[in-house]
């Protein structure tokens, strides 16, 4: 039953989701693409791109869109897809919201506690590895193309990857702008040149 499995998967993702939107993306990628194969790597990158250029928290957007696509991929109707999308968005925040309500009720402040601070510093380092692994896993024929099927696409992909990588590390370019520009590049290069 894919609805139950999706609910459980996003419940887990929410509970272990430390370290911001990219960590959410890394967790969803691993569970949904690598472990369960509900989505292809290609579908997932398209979803991440869309989630970053539309309003709202990136983690929520990714969860919503992933839920929809997983249900539709499994052969259900678009309406059930919408239901699955809403379910995933809610299950990913369920446990954090309950924990947050407890924290708000008792006015807990983490910074007073050294043990919490130490644990968080270890978690932050771990999340860096998590995101690095997600990036590596997404370097695939589905996202870059292959030399065998189209050498041109592979070279263009590597070029775009390098340009965006350098622009964001060296010049702190806006991710939204980078996505829009590479979309334009894709439109021009694959539509008119290659």
């Amino acid at each position, binding site marked *: 039953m894919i609805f139950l499995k999706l609910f459980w998967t996003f419940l887990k993702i*929410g509970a272990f989701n430390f370290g*911001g*939107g*990219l960590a959410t*993306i*890394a967790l969803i990628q*691993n*569970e949904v693409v690598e472990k369960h194969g509900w989505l292809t790597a290609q579908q997932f990158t*398209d979803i991440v*791109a869309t989630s*970053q250029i*539309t*309003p*709202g*928290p990136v*983690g*929520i957007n990714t969860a*919503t*869109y992933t839920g*929809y696509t997983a249900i539709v991929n499994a052969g259900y109707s678009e309406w059930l*897809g919408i239901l699955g*999308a809403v379910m995933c968005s809610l299950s990913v*925040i369920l446990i*954090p*919201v309950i924990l*947050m*309500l407890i*924290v708000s009720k008792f006015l*807990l402040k*983490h*910074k007073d506690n050294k*043990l919490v601070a130490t*644990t968080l*510093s*270890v*978690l*932050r*380092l*771990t999340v*860096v*590895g*998590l*995101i*690095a*692994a997600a990036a*590596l896993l997404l370097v695939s024929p589905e996202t*870059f*193309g292959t030399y065998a099927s189209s050498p041109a*696409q592979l070279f*263009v*992909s590597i070029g775009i*990857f390098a340009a*965006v990588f350098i622009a*964001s590390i060296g010049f702190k370019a806006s991710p939204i702008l980078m996505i829009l520009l*590479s979309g*334009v590049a*894709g*439109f021009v*290069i694959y*539509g008119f040149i290659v």
Partner: protein
Amino acid sequence: MPKLIQIFWSFFKIGTFTIGGGYAMIPLMERELVDNRKWVSREDFLDILAVSQAMPGIFAVNMATNIGYRLRKAPGSLTAIFGNIGMPIVIILGLATCFSFLQDNEVFESIFKGIRPAVVALIAAPVFNMAKSAGINWKNFWIPLVAAVLIYLLGISPIWIIAAAIVGGICYGKYKERKEAQV
């Protein structure tokens, strides 16, 4: 005490008019909640920010949960959350249904062929800045390295890695406490 509709409207604006994720919402949240509405003091706002980052979950939703609770208890929380994520969900669903019709469209495919490698770069690039702000050094760089290797090469679920990091972090914290107590 603010009305639920006011809470909804404030968080609706914050959620609907920021592109670029939770952290991009901070300035808008501060202006709306601290300066305009005066629902929280700047000091409290920074405390809530720290707690929301430390807790698991979606940062913006954690902020909404906490501030909503301060204003109107649990109903306030729920109102703030749905105000914050309601419109983004509707927009994504609208796009998702449109895109499923465009899937085989050539122009659409060309655009996304260009975007896909960019997305991978946008996930990879922040890793370096995050490592720096997480305080990476020669003693601890093995932590992200081992995490990445276990996930990438051995296919271990990141959930287990995070669980291990929590247990490891607590043990290390306890060890540090004991050591400091001895000195």
